[in-house]
């Protein structure tokens, strides 16, 4: 009996916690189908009519931003995975003069904080004529992702049995073929994790696109939503619908890659 009460207490605690955690999101969902009048005079209630046209109205404004975010986050993820995968293979398996110093150059950046980079990076993007282009986000995101992911990829390549790569060499396969057809399939879980991580970081980034992407038609969802919130004051229903729409792509991405994400994360943390 005593045991059951204790078990019940734990469940109660977690359910209440979960509800508190979700409550703001529930408010967001219910506001997204109400008009301003319903929000102001019946904040907590949800009596029809439901204004699904909020979503149509929000989609009009938000869909170009989603496209921009997908291009920037997707482009960064693909390039970054390719670049860090190649380097991981090169540092993990190949032999060449100066390998260690080059690796340490990349590795050391992992310890160096990035807070100082904002302003000089902005000036660099400006001088390279990248302002208001997707590449301002993509190139710097790929650069920022390298130190950590090169380190992870190298560790994984080193963890693979040597004989595997040797046998490919006997077959006469060139290094690039070995990389593409042997290493890439082996590294698939960590490549996926890396792509997800870079994608999410770019998707959520606010400050960098705020300073580099000023033209409205190139804006990603982060700065775009913040802009809409200041320019559409009073249109709370459509704004909330826009917030809901902007959350959907990550939900889809997570449901596809959740397992790998959680496993990779905890696997890394276990080693500490």
């Amino acid at each position, binding site marked *: 009996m005593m045991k059951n009460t204790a078990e019940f207490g*734990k*469940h109660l605690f*977690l359910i209440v*916690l*979960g509800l*508190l955690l*979700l409550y*703001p*999101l529930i408010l*967001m969902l219910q506001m997204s189908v109400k008009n301003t009048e319903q929000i102001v005079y019946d*904040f*907590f209630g949800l009596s029809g009519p439901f204004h699904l046209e909020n979503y149509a109205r929000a989609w009009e404004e938000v869909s170009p931003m989603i496209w921009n975010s997908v291009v920037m986050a997707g482009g960064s993820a693909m390039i970054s995975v390719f*670049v*860090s995968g*190649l*380097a991981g293979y*090169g540092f993990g398996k*190949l*032999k*060449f003069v100066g*390998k260690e110093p*080059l690796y340490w*150059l990349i590795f050391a*950046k992992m*310890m*160096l*904080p990035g*807070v*100082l*980079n*904002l*302003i*000089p*990076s*902005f*000036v*660099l993007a400006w001088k390279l004529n990248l302002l208001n282009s997707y590449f301002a986000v993509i190139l*710097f995101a790929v*650069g920022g992702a*390298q*130190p950590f992911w*090169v380190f992870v990829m190298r560790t994984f390549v080193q963890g693979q049995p040597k004989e595997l790569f040797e046998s490919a060499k006997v077959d006469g396969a060139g*290094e*690039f073929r070995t*990389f593409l057809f042997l290493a890439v399939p082996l590294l698939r879980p960590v490549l996926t994790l890396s792509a997800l991580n870079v994608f999410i970081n770019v998707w*959520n980034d*606010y*400050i960098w696109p705020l300073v580099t992407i000023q033209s409205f038609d190139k804006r990603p969802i*982060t700065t775009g*939503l*913040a802009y809409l*919130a200041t320019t559409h004051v009073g249109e*709370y229903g459509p*704004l909330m619908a826009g917030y809901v729409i*902007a*959350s959907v792509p990550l939900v889809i991405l997570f449901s596809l890659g959740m397992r790998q994400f959680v496993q990779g*994360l*905890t696997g890394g943390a*276990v080693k*500490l």
Partner: protein
Amino acid sequence: MSALAAVTSKKKAARFVGYAFVLPAVLFTAIFDYFPMLDGIWHSFYRWNGNNIEIFVGLGNFKEILSDSVFWTSVRNMLFFLVCNIVLMLPTLVASIVLFRIKHSRWQYAYRVLMCIPMFIPGIVIMLLWQFLYNPQYGFLNQLLASWGLENLQQLWLGDPAMVKWCLVFIGFPWIGSIALLIYLAGLQNLDSSIWDAAAIDGASPLQRALSIEIPLLKGQFKLNLISVLAGAVTGYNLQLVVTNGGPGFSTTVPGLYMYQHAFGSVNADYGYASAVGLLLFLIALLISLLSMKFIRSEE
């Protein structure tokens, strides 16, 4: 000769293949990480607008920063958020222990997914949503007070300098960090199950068990999360930039935001001055990351 020459030339080619593999990553890191960092350090000794003004001022920027009362206000604000964020690591720790003690594995999985849901929602959406919930006219909090007949307790929330800091801290409510939670759970799963049986036989109370078994064993994971909280509080300013832009007045300005505003927030932008602020933050964050390295080493 031909066979030997072919082999050596092949070997030579193989030596260069390595560079082809690592070159893209080296270039990306050099151009987009190291160059801006060094450029920022260099220009923190200049007055600089990124273009035609570039005047060497020595330590002038640093003197000016350290004598600016707004900077010290921002440091005090940062310390406030820092202390709050450290204290508010506790709910996640407690939740992970309770979650781990759920015996039924399917329920445990369900709760874990539930606690991870906020991770799916972009941070900006949460911030903008709360900005609306704090709206003094239509927002959630004043509506809630009105519905309880407590109109006299209604507040300006984000407009009130005395209250705004607490409002920002409350945006995290109930302060469950999904990633930190997963890290704690991974740590707990690593433990030897015989420890639990021994504790159960001892008849220790749940709280005693937490204090004597789980919390000491999670020390490494706690340090790991503490480091990210420290680094985030010292250098981060996303929340303040989005929700209050440092206001009202300077009541939520933090050093990172102070840096941002000196570069991008005013007409007479000074990238040199802002870089000098950046360098100070860089050094503090570097110290934290070096200390953390030492901590993690000692853990092993």
